[in-house]
């Protein structure tokens, strides 16, 4: 098992490279322009960076994420991934949803192997890799269980393993643990941090929980609704991975207040 490597580099190292994702004056409207979902989004995300998108419901977080995934077209502006304009789903980007979206008729392992199947033939190496990812997600004993036999948290971990199986270096997570209870959620957040650190992926994480956003991210994009725009960006100075206890510190609380304030400024 090669997956228990030491954690990935600190924030500064990640920030050193060129932008993996870049948006210029990005704008998205629905209903023929009557609803502005995202307006004037400008940002650059560097390799290995973990970004949280935080904001209330309907502020355009998911829309932004879906545009990066290539699932939605933008109305105007520019959006590049690896210096190429996004024109549809891209193999270097993978997405995970609030629901586990597992296929009931496949075992955990077969679910994890789905992206490989879609990309082409499945080799034994792929199978071993999938098994390793399940191990990474702590589900080795459940590799041959079907989704209906798993708890909600376990299902999301399978979905997470599947996300990594895509081999994408950009991971988009749309409130992945939103439907889970607090304990499971915190546990999975720690796991997520460990895992994305190990594979050194660039991550965009959507949530409406401020503490969660700060706990996970290198930078927090604070979004406000109507029209959806990025109201401010809060840098998180802690090294990853971080212990959950960090959330009790005064510095952490100060960050929470700053994020709150950013909302307040706009509202």
């Amino acid at each position, binding site marked *: 098992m090669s997956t228990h490597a030491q954690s990935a580099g600190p924030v500064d190292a990640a920030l050193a490279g060129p932008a993996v994702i870049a948006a210029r004056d990005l704008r998205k409207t629905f209903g023929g322009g009557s609803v502005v979902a995202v307006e004037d989004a400008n940002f650059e995300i560097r390799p290995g960076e973990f970004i949280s998108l935080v904001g209330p419901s309907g502020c355009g977080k998911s829309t932004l994420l*879906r545009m990066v*995934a*290539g*699932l939605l077209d933008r109305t105007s502006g520019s959006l590049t991934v690896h210096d190429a304009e996004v024109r549809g*789903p*891209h*193999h270097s*980007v*993978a*997405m995970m*949803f*609030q*629901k586990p*979206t597992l*296929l*009931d*008729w496949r*075992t955990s*392992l*077969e679910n994890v192997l*789905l*992206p490989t*199947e*879609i*990309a082409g033939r499945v080799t*034994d190496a792929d*199978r*071993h890799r999938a*098994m390793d990812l399940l191990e990474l997600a702590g589900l*080795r004993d459940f*590799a*041959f*269980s*079907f*989704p*209906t*036999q798993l708890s909600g948290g376990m299902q999301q971990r399978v979905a997470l393993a599947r996300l990594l199986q*895509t081999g994408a270096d950009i991971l988009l997570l749309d409130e992945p643990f939103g439907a889970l209870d607090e304990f499971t959620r915190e546990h999975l957040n720690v796991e997520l941090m460990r895992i994305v650190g190990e594979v050194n992926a660039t991550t965009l994480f959507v949530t409406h929980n401020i503490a969660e956003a700060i706990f996970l991210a290198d930078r927090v994009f604070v979004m406000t609704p109507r029209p959806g725009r990025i109201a401010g960006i809060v840098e998180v100075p802690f090294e990853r991975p971080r212990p959950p206890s960090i959330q009790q510190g005064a510095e952490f609380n100060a960050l929470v207040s700053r994020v709150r304030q950013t909302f307040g400024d706009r509202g």
Partner: protein
Amino acid sequence: MTDSSDLGPVPPGGRTRGVIARHVAILVTLLAAWEIACRMGWLDPLFFPYPSAILVGFWRLYVTQGNIWPHLGLTMAEVLAGFLAGSALGIALAVCVGLIDRLRRYLKPYVIVLEATPRIAIGPVIIAAFGFGWTSKTAIVMLVCFFAPFVNTLNGMVGVEPEKVSMFRSMGASKLQTFRKLMLPSALPEISAGLRLAMASALGGALVAEFIASNAGLGVLITQYTGTLNMSSAFVCVLTLSALGYFIFRSMEELDRILVFWTDRDRTARVSRRRLASWRARMGDDA
């Protein structure tokens, strides 16, 4: 006929000896009551032959005369062929319609109208169009078997969770891959239910077709026997149909259990164990 896959949770004490004995007792009582009612003249022998006469009729039609076999075989062949062709067509068309939004929109009104029409009334027209041969009978069964799989497949395909479709798109899956790996399996429980419905009505369809125009088949035998007022033999045919229907019904249930194993806890566990075993056989004791 309807899908009666199960009649709610099984009452406790499923199949103990006592329950079976009581079932038999009830059946025997019913038969005895029938026999007595016949002998006392409460039931009209023109319509209700003695149960004992029916029993003798079974022996006659199946053993001493053996004349029911070719008819039974023919009816079963019509049912099977019509069912296979009709449901295959229904599923195939539903797949086309399900994949092409525009087709679905414009086809919908016609499907609704056809669905509302008693299919049996179309039977004579089909005989006229396809002639008197085996094809026309099969065509009628096909027609009867077409709708349930069609409607259910379509519903199942359209009802796939949008998140899952997005997930497939985000993985860069082609339309064909999305269909094969997501839509079709997602629709399987509903397709299976549709197939059960179709199979149930296939028997009725074959019977009608044979009533209308045929030289052989259980429907013909029934007409012949009722026409000559030989009611005990006619009842043998009807009860044969019931048994056939029951058998078909049970086998479709079994098929459903195999096809959509993941809806049943025990079956899922079994399949899971089997997959583990085959992985071990293939990849070594890695798991």
